[in-house]
């Protein structure tokens, strides 16, 4: 009799757990996956890489193509540098402050923060502005971001990100039908940032050298 009761209770508990697992919303699952993906990225003090950006504009017969490189340094921030055809840079501090080399880009601040969040798969930052759907297949993962903040909704329809141990590509679909594809290559964790790079960064973001 006692044994029967125990079986019943444990059975009910198991059933309850099943229910709660099902009840876990798709979003929560995605968030869990997102955090998982974020952990899969190779954690290192330094990340360096190169990128090619193709901007497909509806009205242009050929894409605007640019290339450049980037680095990320823990506790310092990131630099996104376009080298070809026209040089320009964005510096983003670890606190999310954005410094651009050029005037006249209204969304530069928001974009800089998004870029940093995408490179690091910063789940908290991303879910502030976007609804995140994450899927994983073996070591490959992909994210689909749809904006829920008013400002991003005006510009972006969807962003998809693919990667494995690092982010491999970012594809931004704009509302008007324009599309930007950023492919990332040669990701490495060396060399560490040189002192010149560090002091240059600090100078641009207006902080005294440490």
């Amino acid at each position: 009799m006692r044994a029967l009761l125990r079986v019943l209770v444990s059975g009910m508990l198991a059933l309850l757990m099943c229910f709660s697992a099902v009840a876990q919303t798709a979003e929560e699952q995605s968030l869990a996956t997102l955090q998982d993906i974020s952990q899969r990225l190779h954690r290192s003090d330094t990340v360096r890489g190169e990128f090619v950006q193709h901007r497909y504009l509806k009205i242009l017969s050929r894409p605007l193509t640019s290339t450049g490189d980037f680095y990320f340094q823990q506790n310092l921030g990131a630099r996104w540098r376009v080298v070809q055809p026209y040089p320009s840079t964005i510096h983003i501090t670890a606190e999310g402050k954005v410094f651009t080399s050029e005037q006249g880009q209204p969304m530069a601040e928001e974009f800089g923060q998004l870029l940093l969040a995408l490179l690091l798969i910063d789940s908290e930052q991303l879910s502030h502005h976007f609804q995140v759907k994450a899927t994983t297949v073996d070591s490959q993962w992909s994210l689909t971001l749809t904006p829920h903040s008013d400002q991003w909704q005006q510009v972006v329809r969807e962003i998809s990100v693919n990667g494995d141990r690092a982010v491999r590509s970012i594809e931004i679909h704009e509302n008007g039908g324009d599309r930007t594809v950023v492919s990332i290559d040669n990701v490495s964790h060396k060399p560490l940032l040189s002192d010149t790079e560090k002091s240059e960064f600090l100078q641009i973001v207006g902080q005294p050298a440490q």
Partner: protein
Amino acid sequence: MLTGEKRGAIVWLLAVLLGAALVWCKGADLYRVETDLMQLLPSVDQQPAVNQGRKRLAETAERRVLFMVTGDKRSDVTDAGVQVQSTIRQSGFLQLLDQSVAQQQAADFYQQLLPYRYQLLTGAIVDQLEREPEKYLQDSKQLLYSPAAFARTRSLERDPLYLFGSYFEQLFPASLNANKGVLLGESAGVYHGLVVAEVDKGAFDLDQQERLLALIQTLRAELAGDLNLHVTGLPVYAASGSNRAQREIRLVGMGSLVGVVLLLIATFAAIRPLLLAILAIATGIGAAWTLSGFLFGQLHILTLVFGASLVGVAVDYCLHYFCSHLPGAVGYEGSSTRRRQVVRSMTLALVTTVVAYLTMASAPFPGLRQMAVFSATGLVFSWLTVVLLFPFFLRRFCWPRRQHLLSAASGLAERWGQCVVARRWFAMPLVLAVILGSVWLHSEDDVRQLQMPNADLKAQEESIKSALPSNFDSRFFVVEGTSETELLDRERKFAKGLQNLQREGDISGYQGLSQLLPNKQKQRENYRLLQQGLYDRGAVAGYLADLGFDDKLIAAEISAFKQSGERILSLGELMAVAPDHWKTLFLGCEGSNCRSIVRLQGVRDVTALQQLQLPAGVYFVDTVNDVSDVMATYRQKASLLLLLGIVAAAVLLSFWLGKRRALLAIGVPAVAIAITLGALGWLGETLNLFRIFALLLLLGIGADFGIFAVRQRHLAAHTALAIGLSAITTLLAFGLLSVSDTGAVRSFGQTLLIGIAVALLLSPVAARLQEQRNGE
């Protein structure tokens, strides 16, 4: 055959009917009340342009309420903001200033003005086009490659050179982040969500004020524990102020009313004298309002408040009249002689007070003039009521015997008078103390001090302001011109000075129509600049082809440019599509007078603003400061007139009473005023307009005390009782106001409290000094 009493009543009735007829003709217009303090300035000091600007901005400010939720988590703040919005939507009296509406307005603006893109160039683009036009194209191309170039790439087809985009960005900077209609921001790790709403009626609607306070309470109750709600805006201040004032009036007002009623009923053992006293004062105020409304067109709220208080002097007449009827002690003259004497003293007191008050009319200040006429008319009509109507209503009234009260009053007064007169040496140190106190007394005319807003509300306003650095300052400029072109030219020229201030960090920004619209000539120049620098040289076609535009698109752009050569945007067309906060800036054109407002943001250095060179047709408006200035000017003028009033009353009285008695009579209020000023100095209080008005009232009441005291030969007991009753009623009615939390009200009450007490103590002394003379 009519008796004298009936005749009097009929005359009174006719006068009242005449007044009623006047009201009938003019209608409710007579009773419209002006609340703008600026109207109190002499007309020479008032610029119509400044007034118009002030009114326009007040319209918006009077209705706007800002709600700000703060918390540590962005999503919590957003959710709470959404909750605040939905509660506001359901409130029924608050309208949300929806962010989506603002965005829609901005989008419409973009659509409507895009055709004018070749005319509306920003200063930076003009600079570049003037120096190296080709470089502009090169830079534009470069920017298209930048990773954050969404805005540019999106408008590439309709605005390939991003001319209009640059113009639009400058006007609608996306500073705060809107999410679900809540404006989000962050500073030092704390997120804040802002919701803006407007109340339906002005800030001073009582019913709405209550609902607003209730709504704020509901919102606070709905908020999660770790979130804070800050609310600010004129309606909130008004609601809190009026809520407080109502509470005070209920407490103090009801308390004093009950006191006065009980006192009068107890003294005269009936309700009729009380009702008659109320009737006399009501008639006075009613007549004063009607007649001065007729004379001045519209009365100011300040006139009403103080005028009505000044008419309160009339309660003295009633009390003296009633007391003279009380059956006297044995050995006094018959009551009819006494009554004749009282009426004569009363008339004398009336003339004196009216003359003293009418000196106020000599100043070129509308407020003081109104007040002079108001209080003088009010007193005359109250007096008329006492003289004409009271005999009729009191002819069969059975007066109670009040021997004990009378002899107690006269005994007290006599003993006090003797006691003081016997210790004359005391006058010297008293004079010294008064002089010392008066020297310490400083004036303080800042209206913010007088309003004494709730410290908690002030803190909420500060936190919202610090979260919103782009919030508009209360100071602004008004620009005037004879045409739209002149207006814009003047504003643009003047704005150069503001740009300098902005560079030096004295202000964080400004907003003016000239930023929005170049004048006609400049628009043509802009077009020519593009034409000569780029389009005519084929540079644009080359640039577009280089980017990858097909031939059709290139041809479309070139022809769009060619077709818009004659286009000129007028101020009228611009204002038709401009978002509300820009529309506010244009005050319109009346005849050959066009006016606009230039608003300021983030003012850090006020002196820099004040030192700014103001060209012809530009005015600096600092309403808070101006109101304080009005207060200061009125205080100075009113003090002077108070002095003049004392002198005029003394001269007048000396004709009737002789020099000595006139000096003694007017000495009561004069010395009371001096001692009050000294006492305020010792108490560490400051002098302001409201205290001066209290002193004016003290002059009226004190003069009554003095006149009756020195003319009391045959009615010492009745006069002493009447003066005592009058002092107590005045103290109850006004003196209790000294517990008020509102600075202005407290000043008024406290001054009267001290002054009336001193005048009460002085009148037996004056009587004693007069008796001594008679005895000699």
